[in-house]
């Protein structure tokens, strides 16, 4: 069949987006991509910031280790006391923080893009709270075994998160899901789940209740390698699964009809993408509790620094990791008494949510 280019041969190549650096084609054999230099720069900067924050996090504590000896320890050197402090006491906390941030940033970017709504994030729509209720059930029932930590808590969190997601989606469904109704239903379900949590805590024994309360604000305190593995496996599996399905995102951004017209199986793609998002959120909750607002804020910052139309996935994930690691560092060191990381992220995320709602309202009114 004849192509369009026959009507307009040598048509000029599309101009780059304003101020974004010039996109260039990258072609190796049959592999091709549009290469966006500015995104690459942002990516490199974020990796550098993350490495630095993680390094400081590993070096800081009651027994300070000089920052420059951290790489040495990680590569297998250093003195025994430093090695023990960093690898056994601090590394799990830092590593879980990074992974949880990656999971939350990625999950938020997926849900915000699929629903075409910045406020539709797993932490606002009750998915985190659902996972929290699931995990809490196991914690309150008593799970001080390795099997409990490695299997039961993550499984219960996943079940809770999925149930909450299905509930929100079903209640918001009316021949399609309208963004505004989704948010109202999500916020309502979130409130119900938070109330359920309080009720469960009231019934729990004192010791468990104290442990659970800290955990519920989202905490990296006292994390061990046992909590690290489930998130690691989950992040690995879900990212692998997403490599194939994320290709439909650019089309899904244009709405269901246009996406279907471009050959995307809309129902199936959306379902898989949302399951990935719920799964990542649930596993991060099982490892560190519901760390508030990271899934919502990280993609929104990524969106603003890149100037893209939807949050870029990789940058959102790295942004999430930076946010959690930096917030944990602030919670541990800068504040007068050490606080759970969730308090810091909520303090950043809450005002941002209010700002976004006000701006959306203004736009709708205009």
């Amino acid at each position, binding site marked *: 069949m004849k192509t369009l*280019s026959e009507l307009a041969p040598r048509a000029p190549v599309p*101009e780059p987006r304003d101020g974004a650096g010039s996109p260039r084609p990258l072609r190796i054999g049959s592999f*091709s991509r*549009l290469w966006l230099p500015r995104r690459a720069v942002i990516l490199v900067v974020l990796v550098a910031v993350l490495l630095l924050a993680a390094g400081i996090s590993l070096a800081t504590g009651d027994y300070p280790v000089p920052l420059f000896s951290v790489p040495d320890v990680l590569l297998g050197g250093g003195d025994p006391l430093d090695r023990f402090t960093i690898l056994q006491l601090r590394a799990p906390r830092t590593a879980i923080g990074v992974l949880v941030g990656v999971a939350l940033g990625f999950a938020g970017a997926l849900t915000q893009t699929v629903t075409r709504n910045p406020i539709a994030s797993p932490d606002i729509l009750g998915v985190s709270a659902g996972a929290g209720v699931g995990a809490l059930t196991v914690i309150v029932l008593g799970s001080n075994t390795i099997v409990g930590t490695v299997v039961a808590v993550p499984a219960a969190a996943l079940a809770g998160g999925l149930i909450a997601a299905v509930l929100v989606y079903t209640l918001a469904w009316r021949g399609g899901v309208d963004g505004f109704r989704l948010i109202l239903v999500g916020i309502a379900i979130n409130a119900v789940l938070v109330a359920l949590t309080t009720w469960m805590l009231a019934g729990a024994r004192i010791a468990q209740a104290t442990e659970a309360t800290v955990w519920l604000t989202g905490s990296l305190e006292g994390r061990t390698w046992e909590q690290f593995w489930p998130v690691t496996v989950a992040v690995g599996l879900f990212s692998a699964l997403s490599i194939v399905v994320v290709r439909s995102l650019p089309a899904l951004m244009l709405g269901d009809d*246009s996406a279907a017209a*471009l*050959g995307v199986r809309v129902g199936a793609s959306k379902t898989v993408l949302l399951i990935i998002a719920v799964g990542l959120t649930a596993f991060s909750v099982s490892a560190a509790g519901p760390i508030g607002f990271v899934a919502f804020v990280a993609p929104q910052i990524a969106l603003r620094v890149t100037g893209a139309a939807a949050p870029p996935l990789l940058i959102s994930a790295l942004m999430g990791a930076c946010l959690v690691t930096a917030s944990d560092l602030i919670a541990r060191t800068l504040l007068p008494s050490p606080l759970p990381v969730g308090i810091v992220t909520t303090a950043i995320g809450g005002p941002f949510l209010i700002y976004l709602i006000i701006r959306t309202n203004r736009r709708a009114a205009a």
Partner: protein
Amino acid sequence: MTEPSSPLVARDITLGYGRSSIIDGLNVSIPAGSVTTIIGPNGCGKSTLLRGFGRLLRTREGEILLHGAPIDGMRTRDIARRVAILPQAPSAPEGLTVAELVSRGRHPHQSWARQWSSDDEAEIGAALALTGMTHLAGRPIDELSGGQRQRAWIAMTLAQGTEILLLDEPTTYLDLAHAVDVLDLVDRLNDELGRTVLMVLHDLNLAARYSDRIIVMKEGRVVTVGTPQETITVEMLREVFGLSATVMIDDESGAPTVIPHSTRRATRIPVD
């Protein structure tokens, strides 16, 4: 009814939303290499029929055949490589640029490895040039005028590079000159590249000028199908649109031209 050279055939199709049927037992076939236009009053089911042809809406009964094969069992991607559809009211996310939107049109031709081939680039460039959007390529869609936005979406549909184009009201929002530009482009695509076009238009005069065939619809049914001369008549306008009008034949093109009778204005007492 079914001609062998029809790339698209609707056979006894029923289409609807929720519990209600909008179109019930409709038959129509679109000739290969033609420009066919659906006309009819608001809400008569034109968009619904077009969405059925693009399988954005599945038929409840009957079947739609694409080159003789029922589209119901086809892979979405295979349909998207052969049929492009411009929905009536598409919406782009805030901040998406024209070039980014148009490049989405290449989606059905891309794979995980191949996402920006030189073919993709050439087709996107050509689609932008043909719709006169090259100079706006870097601009966000939400900062464009209604007509510019419309042309950006048309460019995306063209970049899809399909043999069949389904266009739902491609000229709404366009001033008359741009409407004529877009329809001239449709005509070129049909004439020079052999594309089959099925579109919905509200402007009967433009429909008459640019179509080989007209499908007249009313309340979910096809009233008549034929050339503009056969279909756009005083009787049809009265029966289908409830409009009293004179139909003249344009000397230059031979196409019927509709001049509506002013029911009120003509009898008004002039104000001085």
